[in-house]
């Protein structure tokens, strides 16, 4: 009985700590997604993305350097980008890379490994390669052919600000019922109905879209945090050490550990560093490259937003590519 109580309080503590740590960032991600949805026109994104080809995957994998967004915040934002007609495979590259290849994570990794720059470089480099390859691979198997958004996500698709409207009536951006496609029509429509309180309305719209996004994603964060807490209680961390020297088993174990313990990408380097002298660098890289890309909480977040087949394709490709890349690295 006492042991059970002990487990229960450890469980609630770990559960609440993951939830509290991640929730503000999920809220930030939802707000960013709503902002992109309302205020960033498709054309602007298309322009930034540039031409087709491998270049955009490389760019997407480096975008985290400019937008340092962690793995919880990135899923709502990714969904929002796809609604803006960004090819899903490019978004996958972005979602996989940004939580690792970003300055904040570089800094925390450097701190955790007490200034060993090589660890930082290898971590960033491997994550960049994995993210770009995953995007290119998913494109080549035709993932971009149909929309990966879940049907209800499509049904709930919200009013969109058309680029024409935005450029001409920067302040009148609320009209959900303006659905006209033609420039001239938009123009007259927006003029005749330009509301006096448009700024307030658009703030309200922004907030309600954020709320909707956060409400649908937040439950998955709660479930993910619970699963991670159970895993942390049941499996002693020393299990991860016991497989040490074998690059295949070591990498696989550390990747599973990273997936299930759902640490945030700024913190996982410190946990990895605690294994430093016990595990080969390759296994540590498996932990630090894979964990931020996929873990139990953001997998559930992905399922909230995207169709099952798409999520499965993403998980399999990122997992296999990470494993091969990391094992390849440790054998070299």
């Amino acid at each position: 009985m006492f042991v059970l109580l002990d487990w229960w309080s450890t469980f609630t503590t770990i559960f609440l700590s993951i939830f509290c740590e991640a929730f503000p960032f999920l809220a930030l991600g939802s707000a960013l997604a709503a902002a992109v949805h309302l205020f960033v026109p498709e054309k602007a994104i298309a322009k930034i993305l540039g031409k087709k080809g491998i270049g955009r995957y490389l760019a997407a994998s480096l975008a985290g350097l400019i937008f340092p967004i962690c793995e919880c915040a990135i899923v709502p934002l990714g969904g929002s980008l796809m609604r803006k007609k960004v090819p899903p495979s490019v978004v996958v590259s972005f979602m996989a890379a940004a939580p690792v290849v970003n300055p904040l994570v570089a800094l925390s990794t450097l701190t955790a490994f007490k200034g060993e720059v090589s660890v930082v470089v290898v971590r960033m480099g491997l994550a960049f390669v994995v993210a770009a390859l995953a995007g290119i691979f998913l494109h080549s198997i035709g993932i971009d052919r149909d929309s990966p958004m879940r049907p209800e996500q499509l049904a709930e698709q919200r009013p969109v600000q058309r680029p024409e409207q935005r450029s001409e009536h920067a302040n009148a951006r609320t009209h959900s019922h303006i659905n006209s496609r033609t420039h001239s029509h938009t123009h007259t429509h927006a003029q005749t109905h330009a509301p006096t309180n448009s700024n307030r309305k658009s703030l309200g719209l922004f907030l309600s879209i954020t709320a909707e996004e956060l409400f649908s994603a937040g439950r998955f964060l709660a479930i993910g945090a619970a699963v991670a807490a159970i895993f942390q209680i049941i499996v002693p961390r020393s299990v991860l050490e016991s497989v040490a020297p074998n690059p295949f088993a070591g990498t696989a174990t550390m990747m599973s550990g990273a997936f299930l313990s759902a640490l945030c990408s700024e913190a996982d380097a410190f946990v990895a560093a605690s294994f430093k002298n016990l595990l080969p660098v390759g296994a540590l890289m498996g932990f630090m490259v894979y964990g931020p890309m996929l873990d139990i909480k953001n997998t559930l977040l992905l399922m909230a937003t995207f169709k099952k087949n798409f999520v499965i394709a993403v998980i399999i490709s990122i997992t296999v590519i990470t494993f091969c890349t990391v094992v390849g690295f440790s054998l070299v």
Partner: protein
Amino acid sequence: MQLMNPEDLERPVRAGTFLLLSALFAFLLTSNRIDLLIIHGHSWTIAAAAAFLAILGLNELWGFFTGRRRAQDAATCSHSHSHPHHSHHPQPCDCLSNRIAPKRVKRLCVNALIFMAPVLLGFSTTPAVFDASAALHRGLKMNLLSVAPRHPVGSLVELSGFVVRWEELPPNEMAVTRFVVSCCVADAVPVGITVRHPEAAAYPTNSWVHVKGTVQQESRPTLEQGGSEPHFFIQAYLITAIEKPEQPYLCHDH
């Protein structure tokens, strides 16, 4: 207009959920319980989230009492029917509600219930502080000294922590341990140092002690199998029992 349209429920349910979560975060902050969950340097994110959730919740309430389903539902209807022109009618269309109402209401309820888990647990439980058994479970590393600035062999050190023991440990030794947290306690890493003192056994496992002693080094097997780190320990000359500090965790400063 029927009262039980799912659209009528969604905004107030979201409002209630967000206001409760906001209250939870405010409660965790004001009761200082948050410091036992995430590092102090991240408290501001909780404060910001509490404020933001309150704004979101109030906006949903406001929308419920005034505009009703202005934003989302006009879009829902226009998109699902892909009408090129949607008339400017003020009353919300009920085109979808009948068809998908039960599914939507169910999802809404399940969502709200899941959110109640952190709310209820957060209000009702005091966060546990990880102890000796957690330290062993999480793989105790005997490198507490390397967390602090380097101490050469023979130098005087002073540190505090809680007592951890395991079977093979001789009676005149104990591991004085701290958890180091980098973001939230889920990533806590236990680090300890062996302390040797003739009366070490007098300090029970999990009790907090303050130790003064000199750094020594010897060659002996470490806790981990095949551990190759040089094994340091502290030859203590003074051990004092102390209260558990208010902040039992050490933090990495990024």
